[in-house]
Structures are given as structure tokens and as C-alpha cells.
């Protein structure tokens, strides 16, 4: 099938307005995720008494579903995306409340809900919806004075972060806090606001450090990982050291057997051990590329609502990547945060696909009223 510019079908419009380089990068990462899953998940599956390629099979299914999701969402107009976000936000907030009341425990934390026998993690899905809505609300503060936009933005944040803290999911709370704070900064938050915002963040980290046993435990593990031979952090660290620049070769990794979360949170370590740090750097570059492209798209976008949405989604994607990688290389304490596109897990894949679908959808080129010269730093070729 060939597409032409003269053809004004939905697919053709999509193909010529989408940022194709971002799409290629996303597809590459999806593919890499499948390949790495072959290396990382069999040992975990066998350990859990499942069939060897249990996780590989599901990873493949989720990857296909994820690609379809990205395609379908990116077809939508910004207005539809905003409506989907509102719907998702409401549904997920209700689900989060349901989790608190009837949720089931997986790996010691209460974050999952079962719908029709499928375990489901609402906190993964709500993030992109929240970011789009927050971006829109912040934009409204600049455009329409008659709407209580700032209280809406703050309300969205407090609702979600409150629910997440009640699940003691501090990693996700930190993530949405950073993204929301950056959007606030972008929307012209005054300096006083910004400083108080950061100090509240720091104080809350200390309060959490003192009060929540889960957090303290993982914080301790982080800074004592050198002494505890069997800790996950220690094993992850060894993966990078043993792998060196070039890695031990596909399938030759041994540390992955000892990593209980090799297929999800510590997939980056598995890549390091088998394919080497150079491959890790290439992956890092791919993630950074997606973020920079998105920022570039945001710069030439006129509508502040869409612009903030794009930046927020890019940051959500970027900071999640950064936090996961930092944990893997021993820069941050252990947080259960999946690596977008690479880690196994249905909820995480749905969340990431929604994020990227919305990102691509919002950053599609649309007819615009005036011409603005693109910024030199984040140039998007036209």
C-alpha cells in the first residue's frame, strides 16, 4: 500500500502528520524489549513454577496490543485525547479507591485489582491521563481567567498523589510530582511558589523516610548494598561490572538468575550483562532521542494546552526511564518502576502505550494560524 499526500484518508493524514522518527524509535525499543525478554524472563518464569516462555509469550502479546493502542490513540484529535484522559482519570481514581478497599497484594504491596480474572494496576494507566489533564489545566490558567484552572490542577494532583501515598507507592508519587511540578514551572509559576513547592517535596521525603517502614527498608538497602552480597542492588551492580563494555554475549548472563525482578524492574541490568554497557548507552540514546523530539514538537506548537500536554507526557516517559536506570546503576534506592517499553508486564505496557499514543497524537502537525520559526535547539524538520 502506498500513501500519497493527495490522499486525504485517515491513514494517509496520520502517516504524513505523525513524527515518524519518534515512531521508529518506539518500534525499535519495542523490538529490543522482545529480544531482551527472551534472555531475562525464562529464569524468573521457571523460578515461579511457570512454563519457560510464559513471560515471553505475554510480552509479545502485550507488545502487539501496545502498538495497536499507540496507533489508535495517535489517530485521535487533541480534543478527543483530552476527553479520553478525563474518562481514564475518573475510572482510574475509582479503581484506585477500589484497590484500597478490595485490592490484592503482589510482592508485598497493595496496588493491583482483578477485573475479569486479569490483574490490573490502575496507577500505571492514570499517569498519562493525569498529565494531559494537568497540562490542559495549566494552559487554561494563562488563557481563560474566568475558569478556576489552577485549583483544578492542584486538585488533580492532590487526589492522585494522596491515593498513591495511601498505597505507599512512593516511586509513582515522586514521578507524578516531578512532572506536575515541571508543568507548573512551565506555566509560569512564580519563584516563591516554586521554592516552597521544592521545600515541601524535600520535607515530605524526610517524613516518609522516618515513618514508612517499606521506604526505610529500601533506602537502607541502597546505601548498604556493598555489604549485602545477595541484595538486588548488589546483583544489579555486578551485572554492569561483569558485563563491561561489550557484555558476556547473548544468553551468557548468570546474574539474571539471582535477580528476582530480572524481567521487569531490573531488565536494564540484564541488557548490561549480556550485551554490555555500550548497548545500554545506545538504549539510553534512543530514550533521550524520543524525549528531545517531543520537546522539539512542543516548541513549534501554538496551543499551550497541547504544548504542555506534549512536554508533560515526554517528561513522564523520560523521568520513568531515568528513575529505572538510576536504580539499576545504583544511583537511587530500589523503587518498583518499570523501564518503559522494555519491561514485561501488561499494566505497565498499557500505560506506556497510552503515554506514547497521546504524545504522538498531540504532536501531530496541524494547520496553524501563523508561522513561527522553529527554535534552533529542538529543530523539527518539515
Amino acid at each position: 500500500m502506498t500513501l500519497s499526500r493527495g490522499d486525504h484518508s485517515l491513514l494517509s493524514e496520520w502517516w504524513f502528520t505523525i513524527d515518524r522518527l519518534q515512531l521508529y524509535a518506539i518500534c525499535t525499543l519495542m523490538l529490543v524489549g522482545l529480544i531482551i525478554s527472551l534472555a531475562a524472563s525464562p529464569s524468573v518464569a521457571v523460578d515461579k513454577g511457570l512454563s519457560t516462555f510464559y513471560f515471553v509469550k505475554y510480552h509479545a502479546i502485550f507488545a502487539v496490543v501496545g502498538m495497536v493502542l499507540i496507533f489508535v490513540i495517535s489517530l485521535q484529535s487533541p480534543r478527543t485525547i483530552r476527553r479520553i484522559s478525563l474518562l481514564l482519570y475518573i475510572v482510574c481514581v475509582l479503581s484506585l479507591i477500589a484497590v484500597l478497599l478490595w485490592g490484592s497484594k503482589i510482592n508485598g504491596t497493595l496496588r493491583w485489582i482483578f477485573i475479569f480474572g486479569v490483574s490490573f494496576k490502575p496507577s500505571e494507566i492514570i499517569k498519562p491521563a493525569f498529565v494531559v489533564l494537568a497540562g490542559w489545566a495549566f494552559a487554561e490558567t494563562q488563557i481563560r481567567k474566568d475558569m478556576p484552572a489552577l485549583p483544578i490542577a492542584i486538585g488533580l494532583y492532590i487526589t492522585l498523589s494522596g491515593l498513591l501515598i495511601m498505597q505507599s507507592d512512593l516511586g509513582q508519587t515522586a514521578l507524578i510530582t516531578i512532572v506536575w511540578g515541571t508543568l507548573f514551572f512551565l506555566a509560569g509559576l512564580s519563584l516563591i511558589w516554586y521554592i516552597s513547592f521544592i521545600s515541601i517535596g524535600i520535607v515530605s521525603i524526610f517524613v516518609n523516610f522516618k515513618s514508612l517502614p517499606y521506604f526505610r527498608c529500601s533506602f537502607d538497602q541502597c546505601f548498604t548494598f556493598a555489604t549485602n552480597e545477595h541484595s538486588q542492588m548488589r546483583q544489579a551492580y555486578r551485572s554492569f561490572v561483569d558485563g563491561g563494555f561489550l557484555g558476556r554475549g547473548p544468553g551468557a548472563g548468570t546474574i539474571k538468575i539471582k535477580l528476582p525482578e530480572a524481567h521487569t524492574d531490573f531488565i536494564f541490568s540484564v541488557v548490561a550483562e549480556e550485551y554490555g554497557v555500550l548497548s545500554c548507552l545506545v538504549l539510553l540514546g534512543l530514550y533521550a532521542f524520543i524525549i528531545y523530539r517531543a520537546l522539539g514538537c512542543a516548541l513549534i506548537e501554538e496551543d499551550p494546552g497541547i504544548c504542555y500536554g506534549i512536554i508533560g507526557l515526554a517528561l513522564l516517559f523520560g523521568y520513568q526511564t531515568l528513575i529505572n536506570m538510576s536504580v539499576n546503576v545504583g544511583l537511587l534506592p530500589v523503587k518498583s518502576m518499570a523501564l518503559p517499553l522494555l519491561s514485561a508486564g501488561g499494566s505497565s505496557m498499557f500505560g506506556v502505550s497510552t503515554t506514547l499514543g497521546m504524545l504522538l497524537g498531540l504532536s501531530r502537525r496541524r494547520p496553524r494560524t501563523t508561522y513561527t520559526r522553529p527554535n534552533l535547539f529542538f529543530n523539527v524538520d518539515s
Partner: protein
Amino acid sequence: MNTLAVGTKNAQSSRVATRQPKSQVKSIALRVFIIGLSITVSFTVVAVQLIRLAVIGQNRQNTNTSQTIGEFYSRPDIVDRHGRLLATDIALPALFADSHLITSVDETIESIKNIFPELNTTKVRRALSDKNRRYYLLKRAVAPRVAETINAMGLPGLGFRSEPKRKYPNVRLAGHLLGYVDSYNYGVTGVEHLLNRNKGVRRVDHATVNTASPLRLTIDVRTQYALERELIAGIKKFKAKAATGVLFEVQNGEIWAAASLPGVEPANINEMMDRSRRDRLASDAFELGSVFRLFTLAMVMDLDIVTPKALVDVTNPIKIESFVISDENPFAGKLSLEQIMIRSSNVGSGILAEATGSERQHSFFERIGLTRAINREDIKTISPVLPKTWGAAETVSIGFGYGIAVSPLQFAVVFGSMVNGGISIIPTLILQPSNRVFSKQQLIRAKTSSRLRDMLRQNVLDGRGWRANVVGYRVGGITGTADLANDVNYEGNSVITSFAATFPIDKPRFALMITFFDPQPKGTKAMRSAENTAAPVAGEVIRRVAPLVGVEKRAEMRG
């Protein structure tokens, strides 16, 4: 903060942004730029950490490659000069547990405990209760039949892996020479340590057959056995603490037998560490006493201090500094050089050493190799203990073997080079495929060597070495009885008795050195002298080994 403040102002001034797209974009661009910068910094930090970890790994791999590949060493066999086995690798099962698969920790421990009662139960229980320990080594080198029994019990989570284990079929024979290996089959001392550098040694992770050609020693199992048997019999007969012996070829330095008794079993680490079983032959230095008269005589003849026909007046004891030196059986009159040897006259040796002087004595000892340790790849001896100041009194006492301590092996090697025509000897344990080539130095004149041989032969025929004579093999030798020194002084009651021999005397092929430590035989004090302990044992050894090493037996006029 400046940029932030600027950005804030711009943003506030453009609150009505939709009407002025240009300024709107400008103000956002700055803030987006700041966000992009922070993202770049974060990604850079992660990238730097990634590279740092890889560099750590790279450095570690460079220094430590051998530590990560295989756990064990597969070693070639060690055989004697005729190919008889001295040391070999065998595969033995090692018992390990996979905690993950164990169904009942209690049952497992109880069952194993019945077979290995020495097992530390609390330690094992802790290890087996940890489900994440997929490999816990319970016992190394389990006998195959015991392994079968354990296997038959059918306990889940127990497994065996084949590990190489060094075995010594001759048990204690040549134990000191062979040395021992650690639990990873890596050589720690002796020939085993030397073997580590052999090309046949490989790192393996389970027992494999080593097909490398074996290391061939100069030792002969038969002569080694004969020497050890005679020394053990001697220790028993004379109630001695220990004994050493070494037999080597005086032309090429090949050692046919070397032993220090009580011996050690290489597979038994406790015996290896036992101080009373230490290697006295090469790793300990002693004052050997009047066997050193040979070197004094060699010195005065080789340096032409006195004429060969000279006579020495030994009537009066030597008084030097605060010491008085006299003979056990004083002789009034003059003695020839030969008689000084035969009568074992301390006074005579002392007078000759005094006549030579300390400087010349020192340089002579240096030349013949008594001042430095033998430090070869395969043979190492302890450094000789020399006097702190080599003065007149020391010169005299060294003349008859006090004030200088060397290992019996080093003495034997120098002794060999005195009788083989005066040529230096580099001792060896490793058999060379062809004739061994090494730089030979003339240490003393051939004529001096020949005169010394005559004296040694005379000493066996008419002197104190008479009990070492073996009819037909033309033995020459010299005795030495020295008071055994402890840390403070001479114990008075303990002696070291030595006999250094060479045969056949007309064209020496072999040298033999026998030493007994603190023999306490029944009878008079004279019974423990070298004449009655070391010499007869040396005679017995020569009687047994001479036919084995191919020395021709010949009819003799006397004896």
C-alpha cells in the same frame, strides 16, 4: 536562579499569550530549554555511571581473569625417572545442596549427619533454609561408594559434581620433595608448586582427564625407598629425633633420592604443617662440625698455604681470644694432612685455618658456594648462617665446622664438587630429555680434588669412616659429630652426626650425605658419634643402592 527569574517575568508579562504568539513562544522556549538541559544532565549522570561501572569491570577483568573462568586446576602426573607414578589427579564427587529443591531441611540434615557425623549442623541448617542458595557445598572428596549410598537415599536437592583430587600412591615417599596442593588442586610447595607453571596445568570447573605429558623427576622410586627405609631403621635403632639423606650424581647434579625423616604425606595437611616433621634437608641450617675439615684441607692445598707433605704440630691446644681449643683424644707430636683427616683433629684443622687467615677463608668459601643459598627453580635451600664478624676466632672454629651453619643439602652439593674433580654442581630434580647442559666452573684444581679423594678413601679404610665401607664399591667419606645448638647454647647432650660419602672413589659418580639429629643409642657416649651412627647407615644405603644405580662392583685389595 537568574535565568529562572527572567523566565518568570517573561511568563507573567505574557499571560494573554494567545493574542501574541511570538512572545508566547519565546518565553516557553527558555523554559523548555531549561527542562531540556535538566533532562540532558540527568541522562549524562546515568551515562557516566554506566561507563564508570564498565571501566571498573574492565580493570577487574584485566587483573583477575584467571579467577573467574574455572575453579579447579587439572594437573599433569608426576613420575620418577623411570616413569613410575608419584602423583596423579583422580575425580572424586563433591556433595552439594540446592536449597531451592530441598523439601525437608530436617530430614536432609539428619540423613547426611548419619554419614558425616563431623558436619556442623547449625551452619548447614542456616544455609539450607535460605531458598535462594542454589549451591551450597556440603563435602568435598566423598568416597565413590559413600556417594552411591547418599544417592540411593533419594533426597531431593542433593547433587554431586566431579572434582579433581590430587593423590599420591606412594603415600609418604618423597613427600617433602613433592610438596602439596590446596583444595583447588593448586600447588603450594615443592614440585607441586613448580608444576603450576607447567603448560599442562589447566583451569577446569569439573574433573577432567589431563592428557599433558607427565613431569619426570630425577628421583628413582627404588633408591628413594632404600634411602628412606635405612634412615627410618637408623632413627629407630639410634633413637634419633630425625634424619636426612641425599643421593645425587656428582657430574650432572641429578638427585636420585632425597629424604628428611620423619616424613610427610602430601595429602595430609596436618603432617605438612607439623614442625617436628619439617624438611631438615634443605629448609634448615645446622653447624655440621668436623665434616668441614674437608673444606679446610681443600683450602690449604688449593691455595698452597702448606705443601702436601707438611706436618702440623698438634701437641698444644690453640688459645685464641678467650677460647681454648683441644682435641678429644689429644696427640703429642706432628700430623700430616691425611692424618688430620683420619684422626679428626680439631687442633690440626684450627691451625691450618689460622694459617690461611679470615680473608682468604671467606673468599674460598664464597668461591665454592658456601656463603649463598642454592636458589634454583626446582631446588632451594635456606641461606647459610655466617658469623657476624669473620674474625680470627671465627676463622679457627669454622676450620673444624663451628660458627657456620648450612643445610645438609648444600653441604652435600659442595662436598660433591670437591670430589668430582673440582667442578661446580647445580643440583636438579627435573629430568632433562637429553644430557643436561650447565655452565661448569672449576672451583678447585683437579689435583686438589684427587688428593682429597685419596684422603677420603684412606679415612674409610683406616679412619673413622670404616663402618661405611662396602666391599667392591670403593667408598670414600668423612664423618662429623657436632654438638647440637639450641637457641641459647649448646645442649651438651645432643649431637648431629653426619657422614658424607662418594663412590666409586677412583672416578666418583655418586655422592651421599647422611645426617642424624640427636641420636641417643644405648651404650657409651662414643656410640652416638658419626662413626657409629651415620657411617654404618651410609654403608647400608650404598650397599642397597649401588646395584640399582649401576655402579660396577669390583674386587678390592683391602677391606
